[in-house]
């Protein structure tokens, strides 16, 4: 069972998400908050696995709230919920450590899958959109050797950026699943990333993968 807290200043967004998430047996909404400050108090009290967080809110906004939540021990996974994928706030939230993001216009399956994927932490959501967001930011200074990744680890990171799961990476590189897990863990450790989304964000901002040459 995965427990979820919903944070959005619009109650109708919260009620919609609640109805969708509670329609499947493995997800349970354990609380709702209307702004960032309320969210931090609530999460401290109920300790959910996942927080669905609106980025644009009055008062303490989603980015600041994400930072505060990730400072808790143990930190919840934060899934950013947004109206537009091109919103710069989304990338900001990913940069401070959100585990992924979800569009408010997503289908029920996408909503449920997004929460499950974030809880499991084994897949990057919307790899294309993450790439677009990274491209909108300031041009990174490419520094492919910054983190002393091995050739294999760089390869694994590139596939993570494409949104492949561990199993898919294993199949693609003809490696065992355990080996891939080890590589992923090493990449996260070397990049100082809390999860694969953050690793990919770091990879884009430091020019480790796939940005066209400036």
């Amino acid at each position: 069972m995965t427990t979820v807290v919903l944070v959005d200043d619009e109650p109708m967004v919260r009620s919609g998400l609640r109805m969708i998430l509670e329609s499947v047996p493995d997800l349970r909404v354990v609380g709702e908050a209307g702004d960032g400050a309320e969210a931090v108090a609530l999460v401290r009290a109920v300790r959910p696995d996942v927080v669905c967080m609106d980025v644009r809110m009055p008062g303490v906004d989603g980015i600041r709230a994400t930072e505060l939540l990730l400072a808790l021990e143990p930190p919840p996974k934060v899934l950013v919920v947004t109206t537009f994928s091109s919103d710069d706030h989304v990338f900001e939230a990913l940069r401070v450590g959100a585990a992924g993001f979800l569009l408010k216009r997503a289908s029920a399956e996408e909503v449920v899958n997004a929460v499950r994927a974030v809880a499991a932490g084994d897949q990057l959501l919307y790899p294309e959109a993450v790439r677009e967001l990274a491209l909108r930011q300031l041009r990174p200074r490419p520094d492919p050797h910054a983190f002393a990744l091995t050739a294999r680890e760089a390869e694994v990171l590139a596939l993570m950026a494409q949104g492949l799961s561990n199993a898919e990476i294993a199949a693609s590189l003809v490696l065992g699943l355990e080996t891939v897990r080890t590589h992923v863990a090493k990449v996260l450790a070397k990049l100082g990333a809390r999860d694969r989304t953050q690793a990919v964000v770091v990879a884009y901002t430091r020019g480790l993968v796939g940005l066209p040459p400036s």
Partner: protein
Amino acid sequence: MTAAGGAVPGSRVRRILLRTAFLLAGAALCLAFLLLQTGLVQVVRQSGVAPLWVAVPVVVAPVLLLGLLPGVREVEVAAARSLLGVRAELVTPDHLRAEHRWRCAVWVSLHVVVGGVAGAALVVGLPGLVTEAPALVAGRRPGWWPGPGAPGALLGLLLVVLGTALVVAAVVMAGAAMARWAPWFLGPTWRDRLLLAEDRLAREAQHQRLARELHDGIGHALSLISLQAVAGRRVVGVEPARAEASLQVIEQTARSALDELDAMLGSLRDGPVPRRPAPGVADLERLVATHRALGLQLETELDPELGSTALPGLVSSTVHQVAAEALANAARYGPGGPVRLRVGLAGEPHRRRVGVEVTSRAAGGAQPRRTGGRGLRGMAERVDVLGGTMTAGPDGHGRWAVAVELPVPESS
């Protein structure tokens, strides 16, 4: 035929011909002035009432003044575009400032002089060479030849060819030079660019407001509708009551979003919202009142003469901007004694200057931070463009002072 591209030989010839036409137009004007000069010289010489040199300023002055006549700039801009093939931006402002006027006058003089020289080379020089050619090639000695004997047939031919090439090259280069100089004389001045940039900023701000309204209003409503529809469909089988509630949310959200869209489209349809002029000196009182209402302890000294003096819009708005920026900085550094704002006129009647001075606590030596690229530096650039001076720093009494002085153009 393509436009002057350079690569196609045909277009190159065409461009050279058009530019030569531009020079010949200048030559025609030059000829008119020369006729005037000749006539005057004769009159002066015969009557003997004035020294001969009087004829020179009497003819030079009209050449310079020609560029000041209404409509001449328009004609020159049109000629520069169509004949010289200038692609850079050229402007014909509705309100000509001194800068526009003198640049245009110099340009017209240049057109007349360069055109006159080029025309003389083409109309007198080339035919001269042609008439001398048979004699030179035949090996006879022309009167101007410095050497004792005749130059010889081969050397004569060479002289004719070289002379022709020289005249043609000079005319082509003169045309190219005029095309190159035109933007400086007829293009936008720095002040024009500043106004243009401000115009663009205002339009950008309007776009941003529209984008924000679309994002916050319509975008929000549509995503809410989508989300509630997804949710309602998910529960309609098991919890019809909740599904109905979703439908209600969808109905209300859609309706209010349409109302909002209606209002937005209405305002767009009414055409561009008349641009509010940038706040100026007349709005200083309101600026002061706003800061006082926000709790800033503010002492002011506003020159009463300001109310009766018509400052150009750009000077007036810069004064307001400087005051607003400096007061915002002062407010940011919090309490620490009163802030003083002084705005006043100084200088003799024809060289007036308007000054703005804001002094505030020096914030423990900390300098006011630049605000989004439009802080102190943006202010300094703008002041510089207007020919003013700006200082910012400790005033020697432990306080921070920002002082700006701007010249007030005489025409105002």
